[in-house]
């Protein structure tokens, strides 16, 4: 099967490979997929608490070239977006950008799931932090 030039480019020069400190309250981590299915994506975003804008995104992916390219592209797109804008990214956007063939659509779905999971994790942490704030203000 032939890969599109964009998939090859992301595979050979993946953007934003790496990890962010997952205990950081401003970092959301999404881990989706399963080893026995042949793909696992870890996608992380860091949101600037002042602006609400994603200022850093990192990924690590176990999967085929299209899965690597989908997550690499997702991190590129996430930077500079607000949380709401990030949630608006659709797997079909990724399919179109990378010219993924039908058998590889699940890679883009996984990338969308990873984005949503990362943001949900960030939002959950924020909620917990807020809930804890009054407690933290009191003397223990």
């Amino acid at each position, binding site marked *: 099967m032939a890969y599109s030039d964009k998939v090859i480019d992301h*595979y050979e020069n993946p953007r934003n490979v790496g990890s962010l400190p997952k205990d950081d309250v401003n970092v959301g981590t999404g881990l989706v997929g399963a080893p026995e299915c*042949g793909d696992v994506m870890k996608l992380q975003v860091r949101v600037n608490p002042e602006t609400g804008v994603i200022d850093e995104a990192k990924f690590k992916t*176990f999967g085929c070239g299209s899965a690597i390219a989908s997550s690499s592209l997702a991190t590129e797109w996430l930077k500079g977006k607000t949380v709401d804008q990030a949630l608006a990214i659709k797997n079909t956007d990724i399919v179109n950008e990378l010219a993924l063939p039908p058998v590889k659509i699940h890679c883009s779905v996984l990338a969308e799931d990873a984005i949503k999971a990362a943001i949900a994790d960030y939002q959950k942490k924020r909620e917990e932090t807020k809930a804890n704030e009054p407690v933290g203000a009191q003397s223990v």
Partner: protein
Amino acid sequence: MKLPIYMDYHATTPVDQRVLDAMLPYFTQDFGNAASRNHSFGWAAEEAVEQARKQVADLIGANPKEVIFTSGATESNNLAIKGVAEMYREKGNHIITCVIEHKAVIDTCKKLEKQGARVTYLPVQKDGRINLDELRAAITDKTILITIMTANNEIGVLQPVAEIGAIAKEKGILFHTDAVQAAGKVPFDVNQVKADLVSISAHKMYGPKGVGALYVRRRNPRVLLAEQISGGGHERGMRSGTLNVPGIVGLGKAAEICKAEMASETERLRKLRDSLNEKFHKNLDEIYINGSMEHRLPHNLNISFAYVEGESLLMGINDVAVSSGSACTSASLEPSYVLKALGAGDDLAHSSIRFGLGRWTTQEEVDYVVDKLTNVVRRLREMSPLYEMVKEGVDLSKMQWVAH
């Protein structure tokens, strides 16, 4: 060294120049129909076919009269299994095979099941070999055929065919073996194995595609087959159709060359394969060999590079032709059923690469493949969340994964 490097000799092999030279006259000059009994064109074709029959018979220790030419091993497997099922229907309807057989055997058995046959699919042990006690236990008074491959096409594991043949003989059951990957590569003798039916293919042993053979035992017992292709009654009535004379000549020549060069070629390939294996183990941790190393074709290696996915590995070595058991490289989007049957876990099937060495593989190529693949594995592991988690001490098997 010429790129790309071909290291996928289990899939197919190039035609040896000597084979091609032997074939060429039969396209244009000696083009006769081997069934034309009354002129010299027919006689020349028939003579060439009979010589090829002898060359094939010599390779497997058979009598030339026991060799039937077919269009390839898929047809040979179909003819052997369906032919026996139909011919011996009165005697019984039970067939024993195993889960890692080639699809040409498994799907043939499945089709027969739909038509009322009973089929036992023996599991394999961790080393890829069947358990002979399980084979004995599976035999019933309705069992008419045991069909177990000699060597597996993915993991190169050799089944204990001589022991299987002895059990079949003792019980009066016919024994068919798909010897496509083994014939011409390692010694194989129909009498030593006590095989009644043996499938072989030309294009796996440096002959042309589209031609194969089925060995059909003529004595002790005389095996009968119901024809699956009806017509002019060629090939002792077992396989009608005008003989593919150039192809058959190619198969014969290929068999002759394989037999003559087997001893030295086996040793040469074993050294190269072992070198490939040792170098990978020296360079990388967490790599796993799939299947027995002891009972294995000398030119096969099948390794899982844990925490990296097979298709992404292949993408990184695009000037090397190998294959992977990963789901992404298969049409069915399922990981290799052979590797799954070993019980090592689907994740290792996704990470597997099959190396098939052959007549033109060199040490220089082996070294290139090791270097290239080592670099890609290291690069992809740096990118792998699984590798990162394992290094952090996470037990992946205890994780709750969100399957999709």
